[in-house]
């Protein structure tokens, strides 16, 4: 196995499959995920026409799973971008400026780490109400603490480096130093934690939608499809199997990709683990 980064390649492959499914959904199916309901076809098992079977309204589950990928990926990627921006901005500035600002950011990070992020997101969803925008806000504001920690500790170790001091001597502004001297030197670890964060956000979206707080029916979110499927589980188990499998494959893809990236960026870790 040495030399071949299985996690990176397999994780990348799974992620690519999901991204292609989301992007080309209209080409891969001719049906509509919401409006093509036909009670004549309700609760059909998987066959040549309906690859994943149909749900209680006779909608094609394959179609709904494909369009569900769009929601999951949008929520996962956008909320993680918000998290990364918040975490980086707070972490770098806290370590660079130090003083009361550092204490404040540190305190806030500790509080954030003490509240389970799903519970926090649930509280925010309760206020904002269900919907895509609420999900982006709720998940984007609640999972930045690890990014912040990494950014802060990287900055602390980079701050004393010669090139940062050189930039200071040249009279660069603080923001410019943070953006051009510090930020590029932590891209690796931030990329790893962000990739893993997308997987976590996809899981959280599914859980919130399953609880009825995220994306509401009839829109095809994997989590809310499972809420419906629960009622039918005795007669139509395929309605449970496929949306869950889609979540699993997506999250597995991002997790393996994240692990693989870490091994790729830090070969020392890999040799040590084997």
């Amino acid at each position, binding site marked *: 196995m040495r030399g071949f980064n299985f996690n990176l390649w397999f994780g990348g492959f799974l992620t690519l499959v999901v991204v292609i499914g989301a992007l080309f959904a209209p080409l891969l199916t001719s049906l509509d995920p919401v409006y093509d309901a036909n009670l004549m076809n309700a609760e059909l098992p998987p066959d040549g026409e309906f690859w994943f079977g149909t749900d209680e309204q006779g909608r094609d589950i394959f179609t709904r799973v494909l369009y569900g990928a769009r929601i999951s990926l949008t929520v996962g990627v956008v909320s993680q971008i918000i998290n990364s921006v918040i975490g980086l901005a707070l972490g770098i500035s806290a370590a660079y400026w130090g003083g009361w600002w550092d204490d404040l950011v540190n305190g806030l990070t500790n509080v954030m780490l003490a509240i389970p992020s799903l519970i926090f997101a649930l509280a925010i969803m309760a206020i904002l109400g269900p919907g895509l925008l609420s999900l982006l806000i709720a998940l984007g504001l609640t999972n930045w603490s690890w990014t912040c920690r990494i950014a802060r500790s990287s900055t602390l170790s980079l701050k004393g480096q010669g090139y940062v001091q050189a930039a200071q001597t040249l009279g660069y502004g603080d923001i410019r130093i943070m953006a051009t001297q510090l930020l590029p030197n932590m891209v690796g670890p931030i990329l790893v934690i962000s990739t893993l964060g997308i997987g976590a956000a996809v899981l959280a979206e*599914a859980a919130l939608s399953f609880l009825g707080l995220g994306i509401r029916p009839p829109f095809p979110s994997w989590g809310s499809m499972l809420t419906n499927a629960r009622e039918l589980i005795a007669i139509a188990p395929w309605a449970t199997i496929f949306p869950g499998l889609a979540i699993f494959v997506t999250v597995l893809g991002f997790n393996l990709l994240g692990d693989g990236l870490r091994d790729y960026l830090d070969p020392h870790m890999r040799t040590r*683990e084997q």
Partner: protein
Amino acid sequence: MLGFTIRRILQMIPTILAVALLVFVIFSIIPGSFASSLMSDGRGGADADMLARINAEFGLDKPVHVRFFEYITGLIQFDLGTSFKFREPVTDVINARIWASLKLSIAAMVFAIAIGVPLGFIAALRPGSILDTITMVFAVSGLSMPQFWLGLLLMYFFALQLGWLPSFGYGGGQLKYLILPAITLGVTPLALLARTTRAGVLEIMNEDFIRTAHSKGMSNARVIRWHLLRNVMVLVVTTIGLQFGSMMGQAVVIEKLFAWPGIGLLLVDSVAVRDIPVVQGTILVIVVWFLVINTFVDIIYAAIDPRIKQT
């Protein structure tokens, strides 16, 4: 040691207060109130007089800072306010549910430890073997799987197809009702424990003192018992603590799925009807639980590993 313990316990207080403030602020800016959700149950808009009366009854007509002050003073006396829905003190409402949650968390953790730790250990002793590969595939899968989906699948096979176990409910505390929710909740910590144990054993096996022990002629079994186990335990105990602390938070979805009457289900149901005092109370309990367990782990950690105390 005593000083460390006391300092660590005192350090929790500001975090708890900050969380209380955060939770309070979040729920004070909600546009709709309990009164409006109570009134607008699909039978037209709310009647203004009625709204005012309900708001007055629950003290919601007072300004925010007065309510926060009252909230904190109550908190210090372990008074979390009165539930809008149940019309009982929140502490009573939570008290009636917390034992079910504790039972579920402990059962899930026991399951995770009993399988995860030995699995990770055996895998590490034979790195690259079939068993090792299976364990790692299993661990990565367990961490990527939506727990509630696994719960649904278990429910389908063991309750509906095989009929061995009840599919959901509390069943007055009978053991057979506990099994499926506990396995479902335990899978993620199980996977994490297997992974941590394996990584820990592999790392420590390469340490100098293990090589020394081997080279001075100590038997394999003795090396494992005297040197390896003790060092790996530090790592495993930390993981167990962190997982156990965050379990009540993770249990929310599982309790909803299995209709398990713990505080997670209480939280979800209270969010639905905007019973804010209960929502605030349950979130605080979940956070305090997490902090207490973490503090406890830190103290144990310091007790096991004398190097920690110096820092």
